C-alpha cells in the first residue's frame, strides 16, 4: 500500500532528475561567487534556472502521466553518501506521485515569484544576492521533496531553513529583520531536533533511514517506539509548518521581502511539515495516538491562526495568520489520513496545492499594494484601493473567493472535503473545522473590505498607482490558477494519489453537487462574510487602532501570547543561564584555579617566617631534631 514499495529503477528522463536540484543550486553558487561580474543582468540567470527546473518537472510529470498507474514511483540512486559502521546512507531521489506534485507546485509558483520579484526588487542594490538565495531555496525545497531517505530529506529540510534565514534577514541593516531571521532558524532547529531523533530511532531499529527500508520494516518496530517516532515527526512538522507549539516565528518572518513571504512562508516551505507526515503515512498508520495528536495540534493551530488573522492590522501578518490556520486544515486532513482512511491524505495534498496558488496570489497582491503605498503594511492606512489598483483588486478578489470556499473556486472543493472528513471522524472535530471556515471567511472579508473598500484613509503624500506589468502578470496567472485548480484537481487527484490514498477496494465517491455538510459550510461562510461586512464595511474604520477592552482583540493583537510564552519558558531562562555560565566560568571556576596559585604563594610567605636569622634558634631546632631521632631510635630498639 505504501508508496515506497513499488519503485522502479530510473531510465531515460528520470536518470537525470537530479538536474532538477542541480540547476538552481549551481545558479545560486554562480550568482554568489561570480555575480558581481555581470551585476545588472545577473538576476535573469536566477529566473532562467527556476524556469528550467519547472520545465524539467513538467516533462517528468508528463512522462509519469503516460506511464501506467502502477509503475509511477521511480527511485533514482545518485551516489553513496555516508558509510558509517553498521549502516550506510545513499544519496538518491524518489520521484513518485506525491513528490512530483510538490515539485510542480514549487517550481511553478517559484518561477512566477521569480518573475514577480524582478519587478518588486527592481531598486534593491543587492538584488543579485536575493535571487541567489531564492534559487538556493528552490534547490533545497526540491531536494526535500524528492529525497528517497529521511537523511537526504533532512539535508533539504535544514537547507530550506538556511534559505529562509537568509531571505528573512535579507534586509540585514534592519535589526528587527536580523532578529526575526535568527528566531526563525532557531525555532526551525528545535523542530529539526524532532526529525533527527526520529532518524536516530529508525537507525537504532531498522539500521537505515531510506523510505523503502523503514516503511517495509515499520511493523517490526515495537509500537511504543513507532508512536514515539510519530511524535518526533509531528514535532518536526510543527517546527517547519509553524504549528502551535512552534508557530511564533512565522509572524516575525514577515520582516522579509514580500515575494519571500509568498514563496516560502505561504506556498512551499511551510507545507514541508505536511509533506513529511503524508510521506510517513506508513508510520502514522501504526501510530493512531500520534495521528490523534496531529489532529489536535491542527485544530488548535486553526483557531490560533484565525484568532491572529482577525485581530492584526498588518496585512502581511493577517495573511500569515491565515496561512497558519490553512496549514492547520492540511495537518488536520493528514492526521485524519491514518484515522478514517488514507483518502484524507489526498485531501490534504489537494488543499495544499490550491492553497499554494491562492495564498501566493494574495501575498503577491499584498506585495503590489505595499509597492503602491511605499511599503506601508498597515490596513488602516489603505481603503478604497480598488479604484487605484484595479488589476491587483481583481486578482486579490479571486484569491479571496477561493480561500473562503465559494463553490466554483479552488478553496471550496479542497476545504469542503476536509470538513467532511472531519465530520466523518468525529462530530466535535467537524464542528471545529466548520467554525474555522467561518472565521476564515470573517477575517478575509475584513481584510478585503479594509483594504479595497470603504473610505480612502491614505497617508498624505501617498498616491497609490498600479504595479508595473511584470508584477501584475504573475498575479493574473495565480488568480487563474486559484480559479481553475479546484475544478481540475477535484476528481483527478484522488486516483492520481491512488497508491497512497485509496485502500484497495474502497473508493470515495466524489460528487460535484454540494453535500449537506457542504451546504452547512457555505452557510457558516456566508455568516462570516456578513458579520465582517457589518462590522467593517458600513461603519467608519478609524485610521489608528482603537483602544478596546475586548479581551479577544487584545489577545489576538499580542499574537495569542505565543511570543510571550516562548520568551518566559525558553528564551529568558537560556539567556539567564548563559550569562550565569559566563560569570560562573570567569569568576567561579577560573578564580578557583587561580586561587590555587595564590594559595601556594601565601603558603610560602608562611614558611618564610621560620628563617629568623638568629643562630641560636637554629641550634635549638637542631637539638630538638637530634632528640627526636634519638627517641625514635630508642623506641625502635625497645619496641
Amino acid at each position: 500500500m505504501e508508496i515506497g514499495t513499488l519503485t522502479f529503477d530510473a531510465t531515460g528522463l528520470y536518470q537525470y532528475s537530479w538536474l532538477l536540484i542541480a540547476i538552481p543550486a549551481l545558479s545560486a553558487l554562480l550568482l554568489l561567487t561570480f555575480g558581481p561580474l555581470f551585476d545588472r543582468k545577473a538576476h535573469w540567470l536566477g529566473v532562467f534556472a527556476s524556469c528550467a527546473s519547472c520545465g524539467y518537472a513538467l516533462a517528468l510529470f508528463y512522462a509519469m502521466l503516460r506511464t501506467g498507474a502502477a509503475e509511477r514511483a521511480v527511485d533514482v540512486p545518485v551516489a553513496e553518501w555516508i558509510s558509517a559502521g553498521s549502516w550506510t546512507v545513499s544519496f538518491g531521489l524518489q520521484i513518485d506521485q506525491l513528490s512530483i506534485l510538490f515539485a510542480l507546485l514549487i517550481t511553478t509558483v517559484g518561477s512566477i515569484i521569480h518573475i514577480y520579484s524582478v519587478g518588486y526588487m527592481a531598486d534593491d542594490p543587492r538584488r543579485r544576492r536575493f535571487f541567489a538565495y531564492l534559487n538556493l531555496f528552490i534547490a533545497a525545497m526540491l531536494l526535500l521533496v524528492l529525497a528517497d531517505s529521511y537523511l537526504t530529506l533532512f539535508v533539504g529540510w535544514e537547507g530550506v531553513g538556511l534559505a529562509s534565514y537568509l531571505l528573512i534577514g535579507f534586509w540585514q541593516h534592519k535589526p528587527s529583520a536580523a532578529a526575526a531571521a535568527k528566531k526563525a532558524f532557531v525555532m526551525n532547529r528545535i523542530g529539526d531536533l524532532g526529525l533527527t531523533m526520529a532518524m536516530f530511532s529508525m537507525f537504532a531499529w531498522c539500521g537505515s533511514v531510506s523510505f523503502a527500508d523503514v516503511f517495509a520494516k515499520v511493523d517490526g518496530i515495537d509500537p511504543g517506539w513507532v508512536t514515539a517516532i510519530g511524535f518526533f515527526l509531528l514535532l518536526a512538522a510543527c517546527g517547519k509548518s509553524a504549528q502551535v507549539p512552534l508557530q511564533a516565528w512565522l509572524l516575525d518572518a514577515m520582516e522579509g521581502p514580500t515575494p519571500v513571504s509568498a514563496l516560502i512562508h505561504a506556498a512551499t516551505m511551510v507545507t514541508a511539515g505536511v509533506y513529511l507526515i503524508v510521506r510517513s503515512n506508513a508510520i502514522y498508520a501504526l501510530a493512531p495516538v500520534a495521528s490523534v495528536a496531529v489532529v489536535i495540534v491542527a485544530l488548535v493551530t486553526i483557531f490560533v491562526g484565525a484568532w491572529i488573522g482577525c485581530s492584526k492590522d498588518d496585512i502581511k501578518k493577517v495573511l500569515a495568520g491565515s496561512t497558519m490556520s490553512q496549514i492547520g486544515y492540511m495537518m488536520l486532513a493528514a492526521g485524519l489520513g491514518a484515522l478514517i482512511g488514507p483518502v484524507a491524505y489526498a485531501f490534504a495534498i489537494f488543499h495544499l496545492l490550491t492553497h499554494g496558488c491562492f495564498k501566493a496570489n494574495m501575498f503577491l497582491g499584498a506585495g503590489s499594494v505595499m509597492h503602491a503605498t511605499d511599503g506601508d503594511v498597515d490596513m488602516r492606512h489603505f481603503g478604497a484601493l480598488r479604484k487605484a489598483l484595479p488589476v491587483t483588486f481583481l486578482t486579490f478578489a479571486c484569491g479571496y473567493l477561493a480561500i473562503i470556499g465559494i463553490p466554483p473556486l479552488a478553496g471550496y472543493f479542497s476545504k469542503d472535503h476536509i470538513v467532511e472528513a472531519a465530520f466523518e471522524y468525529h462530530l466535535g472535530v467537524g464542528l471545529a473545522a466548520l467554525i474555522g471556515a467561518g472565521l476564515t471567511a470573517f477575517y478575509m472579508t475584513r481584510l478585503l473590505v479594509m483594504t479595497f473598500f470603504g473610505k480612502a484613509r491614505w497617508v498624505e503624500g501617498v498616491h497609490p498607482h498600479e504595479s508595473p506589468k511584470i508584477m501584475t502578470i504573475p498575479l493574473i496567472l495565480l488568480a487563474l490558477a486559484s480559479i481553475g485548480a479546484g475544478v481540475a484537481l477535484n476528481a483527478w487527484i484522488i486516483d492520481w494519489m491512488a497508491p497512497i490514498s485509496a485502500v484497495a477496494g474502497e473508493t470515495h465517491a466524489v460528487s460535484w453537487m454540494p453535500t449537506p455538510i457542504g451546504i452547512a459550510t457555505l452557510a457558516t461562510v456566508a455568516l462570516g462574510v456578513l458579520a465582517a461586512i457589518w462590522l467593517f464595511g458600513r461603519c467608519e474604520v478609524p485610521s489608528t487602532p482603537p483602544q478596546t477592552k475586548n479581551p479577544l482583540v487584545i489577545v489576538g493583537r499580542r499574537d495569542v501570547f505565543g511570543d510571550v510564552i516562548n520568551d518566559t519558558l525558553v528564551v529568558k531562562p537560556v539567556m539567564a543561564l548563559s550569562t550565569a555560565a559566563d560569570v560562573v566560568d570567569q569568576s567561579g571556576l577560573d578564580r578557583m584555579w587561580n586561587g590555587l596559585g595564590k594559595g601556594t604563594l601565601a603558603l610560602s610567605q608562611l614558611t618564610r617566617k621560620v628563617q629568623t636569622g638568629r643562630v641560636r634558634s637554629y641550634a635549638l631546632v637542631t637539638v630538638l631534631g637530634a632528640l627526636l631521632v634519638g627517641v625514635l631510635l630508642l623506641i625502635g630498639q625497645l619496641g
Partner: protein
Amino acid sequence: MTFPLLTCLGLLPIIGAAILILPVRAAGKWIGLGFALATLGLAAAAVPVYLGDPTALTQTVPWIPAFGAYWALSVDGMGLTMVLLTALLTPLVLFAEWNITGKGTKWTSQAFAALVLLLEGLSLLVFMADDILLFYICFEATLIPMYFLIGGFGGERRSQAALKFLLFGLAGGLIMLVSVVGIGSFSQQAIGAPTYLISQIGVSLSGGSTWAWVLMLCFLAAFILKAPMVPVHTWLPTAAEEATPGSSVLMVGILDKIGTFGMIRICLTLFPVESAAIAPVMIVLALVSIIYGALAAIGSKNLLRLVAYTSVSHFGFMVLGIYTFTSVGLGGTMFYQVNHGFSTAALFLVLGFLIKRRGSANVADYGGVQSQAPILSGALLLAGLSGLALPGMSTFVSEFEVLAGSWSRYPWAAIVAALGTVLAAVYILLMYQRTMTGPATPEVEETITTDLTLKEKLVAFGLAAVVIILGLIPNLALSVITPTAQETLTQIGVADHQAPLGEEVPA
C-alpha cells in the same frame, strides 16, 4: 617498506624548526612555509601507501631496551586523518599569520614559523606513536612551543595565559607520568619483558587488579585536562583570548585533539574493562561539557573566548561518541576530530581578520559589519554554519554519527546532546547577529573599511571548501575511519549495536 616514511614525516618539521634558528631574517617565513608544505607532501605520499597496505607504514625500532621502549610509529585510520589534518592546518596557519610580529624584538615571524614547525613535528609524532613512552614524551614536549607561541605573540595578558596553559598541561602530564611508569612495571609482570608497545600490551593489563584502575584513571585525568572538559577547561578560554588566532587554531585544532585521540588510542584500547565501567561517568561529564560550553559561549562577551567555549562543547560531543561504545559513535568521533579542526580554524581565522581590522575582540564593539565588509561577513557566516553543523557540511555528518551512535545505547544522553546542537545554532547566530547585522556603528564605519584581501579570501573560503567537500563526500575520510572504528571495537571486545531489524551487518 624500507624507507622510514613516518619517521621522516615526524622529523622533517623539527629539522625545519632547527634550520630556522639560523639568522635568515626575511627568508625565515618562506623557509617555514616550504617545510610545512614539504611535510604536507610527505603526508599525502603516505596515504596511497596506507591504502595499499595499512601495516606497511608501521616501524618499530628498539629505542631503550632497558625498559622496553621502542621508537614505534604506526598509523591507523584515525592516526592518518589526524596527521593529514595537522599537515594541512600548519601551512594554512603560517600563510594566514604571514606578517605577524610579536611584542619585543626577538618574537619575529621567523620565530613564529620555527615554533609552529616544532609544534607540528611533535604533534605528528604523538599521532603516530605506537609506543606509550614516545607518546608521553612528545605529549609533554608540545607544551613548550605552544607556551612560547602564546607567550610571545599574544595580547596584553599573554604571559599569565601562557603560564596557566603550561601549568594545566604539566599537571596533566605529571599525572600521566604515574601511569606511564606504572605501565612499564606492570607490563613486566603481565608479559614478562617490560614493554611500552601498545600493540604488544594489548588488553593484558586490563580487568586485573585495581592497579589497572589507577593506571587508566591517571591517563584519563591527563586527557580530560588536555581535551578540556568542564571543570578543568578554564585555561582554554584564557589562552584563546590572549593568543593570536593562528596559534589558537593550532592549540584547539591539533593540540587539544591529543586528549580525545589519547582517550581512544590508550584508555580505550588498553583498559577496555575499566573504560566500560567508567563510561556512564564520562557520558555525564561529556553532556555537562556540551551544555555548559554552549551556554558559556552564548553568554561570552569576547569573540575568541566564544570560539574557545564552542570547542569545549564540541569536545563534549567527541567524548560522548567515544564512551557510547558503538562503531558509528566511535567513527563519528574520529571524523569529528578532523572536521572540528577545519571548522574551528575557519572561525578563528575569520574572526582574526575581523579583530585585526577593528582592533578589539569584544562583541559589544561591533555592529553592522555586513554593510562595511560583505565578503568578510559571508565568510564568517559560512564558518559559523560549519560550527553549528549545518547538513551538507562535514561537521553535520560527524555530529549525526555521534548522536546516532549514542542514541542506540543511551537515548536520554542523545536527547540532551541534541539540545546542544540547538544551543549551537543560538550562539553562532547570536554572535553573527550582534556583530554583523543592523546599522553599522560609527566606530565600525571608520575602522572596518577594507574587505577581505586575496590572501584572506584564500584562507577563509579554502577552509570552507574543505568542510563542504568533506560534507558532501564524507567517504573520503570515512572509508579510512570506519574500518578503524570497527577494528577498535572488536579489539576491545565490545559488541557493536545491532539494529534488530537491520540486515546482518558483517561482524
